[in-house]
């Protein structure tokens, strides 16, 4: 399998911070993987994703996406990525259609192909009938589904999902996960997924990495991790590795 994302000894220390946010992190994500990035609050997941998206530079180390770095090929790297933030990153006073049309144009898409793409995704996620309603009138689950579509419009090779199912009902969660599985299976889309729903991660991810305190603790194929740690589930593996202490002080 070819490598899509190659992280080599990446560290990040914020200027005013007393500790390192990401500490000598190295990992690879292959094309077609569904890669779960797990870790407690403050483990460094958001910092890592921000660097991966090219929002700010690393303090040391390199991030390669399709063999290119943000430093030299920012536009090409960003074109590969689709991001679904944890927040509902949509304009509440615009309709779902207007939001998606705007974001599609920002990805450089336009015309009939964009409209078709939006309609198709809205239909798959059960939002076709409500597409001309303002986002402010949507339920939490509907907002999450539109939020997901916004990251998919340009057919990214790597889809980064930051807790995509937080705060949604079972039906919406099911629809989102099934759609993602479909995209991975049919289109070979690589997915980087973070969540605190460990059961969902175990079911969804082919590979998992657990980070804590900015360091990579373990990584591997999901089933292999469970076997290697002599556990019954990823949740057990997670608690065994990260401990049971509260992290968000």
């Amino acid at each position: 399998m070819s490598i899509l994302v190659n992280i080599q000894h990446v560290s990040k220390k914020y200027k005013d911070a007393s500790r390192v946010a990401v500490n000598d992190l190295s990992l690879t994500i292959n094309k077609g993987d569904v890669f779960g990035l797990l870790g407690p609050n403050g483990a460094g997941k958001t910092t890592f994703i921000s660097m991966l998206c090219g929002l700010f530079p690393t303090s040391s180390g390199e991030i390669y996406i399709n063999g290119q770095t943000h430093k030299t090929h920012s536009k090409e790297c960003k074109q590969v990525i689709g991001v679904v933030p944890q927040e509902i990153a949509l304009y509440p006073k615009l309709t779902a259609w207007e939001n998606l049309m705007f974001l599609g144009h920002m990805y450089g898409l336009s015309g009939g192909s964009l409209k078709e793409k939006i309609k198709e995704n809205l239909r798959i996620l059960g939002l076709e009938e409500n597409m001309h309603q303002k986002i402010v009138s949507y339920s939490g689950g509907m907002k999450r589904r539109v939020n997901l579509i916004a990251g998919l419009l340009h057919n990214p090779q790597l889809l980064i999902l930051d807790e995509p199912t937080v705060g949604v009902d079972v039906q919406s969660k099911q629809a989102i996960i099934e759609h993602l599985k479909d995209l991975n299976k049919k289109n070979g889309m690589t997915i980087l997924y973070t969540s605190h729903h460990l059961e969902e991660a175990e079911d969804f991810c082919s590979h998992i990495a657990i980070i804590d305190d900015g360091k990579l603790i373990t990584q591997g194929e999901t089933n292999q991790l469970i076997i290697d740690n002599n556990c019954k589930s990823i949740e057990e593996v997670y608690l065994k590795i990260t401990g049971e202490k509260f992290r968000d002080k």
Partner: protein
Amino acid sequence: MKLLYSIYKEYKVLIRDRAGLIITFIMPTILILIITLIQDTTFRSVNEASVPLLIVDRDHDSLSQTLEKSLINSKFFVITKKQLSDEETKKQIATGQFFIGIIIPENASKQLREKTSARIAKLLGSFSGDSTSIKEQRDTTKLNIQLYFDPITKKSFKTTISNSIERIVSQIEMQSMVNSLNDKMKESFPLATPSKLEITPIVNLKEEYASYNNSTIIPNSVQHNVPAWTLFAMFFICIPLAGNIIRERDDGSAFRLLTMPGSYMIVILGKMLTYVAVSLIQFSLMLCVGVFLLPMLGMPQLNIGNNLPVLFLVAISAGLAATGFGLLVGTIATSHDQASLFGSVFIIMLAAIGGIWVPTFVMPDVMKKIAVISPLNWGLEAFYGIFIRNFGFKEIFPQVAKLLGFFAICLGSAYLYQKYKRLR
């Protein structure tokens, strides 16, 4: 295409934000109407007839009638006639019912005629060498017209009013002298038919405002308040703009847009162009208020001068300065509340310093010097230049350059701050 869609998105977001629309368009309209109506009297007192004057006429003869007629013709006073005692007159002035009270004593006209007649007789007697009669006819008593002033009257204003009345009285005295002289001449030369001596002024003081390019517009409350509050509203746009930026940052939209290839700068450019367009619409709307609405309420009509391209240039420059400031506030502020508080307080301070509330020409010297640091003052001076002094591009350029410089500094500062935050 990206830019056009970004502008379209901002337009959609803006028109669906009712509170934002009220702040953007309704607030400045109301401010212009209220402040212009309130300040109109103050501006008029400097420019036009509005001094309430009480005449107590005990003479009922030519002197009082001529004085009254001259005061009316001066168009400086609103005249009321009453029959009151000295004490009552004083009381009415002291309580502020009138600015000035004039008491013309009983038989004033008769006394004036007698005195002028005596003086003319004395003059003519001197030609005939009758020194005895000259000595006998010497009269040093004066005819007193009593003036009362409201105690709050400024000394300079009191002097101006006194001088005006004194001039009118002098003319009446002169007229009386001429009349007496005519009568005496008729007595001496009964068969002659002399032409009347003209007493119209020979020396004329030609007065006009030292305006530029032959413009003769006199500043009034509309000329001050419309551009002043329009600028205030244009700069107040920084609050919805900063709020828009902060909202995008808080809800993750900025994060998403930053991950798109080359999109965030276009989004920011789209925001700027949209808000500059909004500020131009504000400006046009406020001009319409000054030109069409205020005259309906009895206010003077706003004269926008005759240099529309330069007026448009100043409006764009002010819009850019305001947008740049909003962008900077939105970049630095960490919350919507912080941006609203900081933005509004700062704009109010700049407005106060810059002569929006109180025109700089009535400010103390120290404040006049401080006023020049405010971008709102630069804009206001530019509008004054176009509306009142009929300035062209060359004369307006320094103010336009300052506004564009302010925009560039705000934009540069926002960029550097953003860069600093990303590299942290």
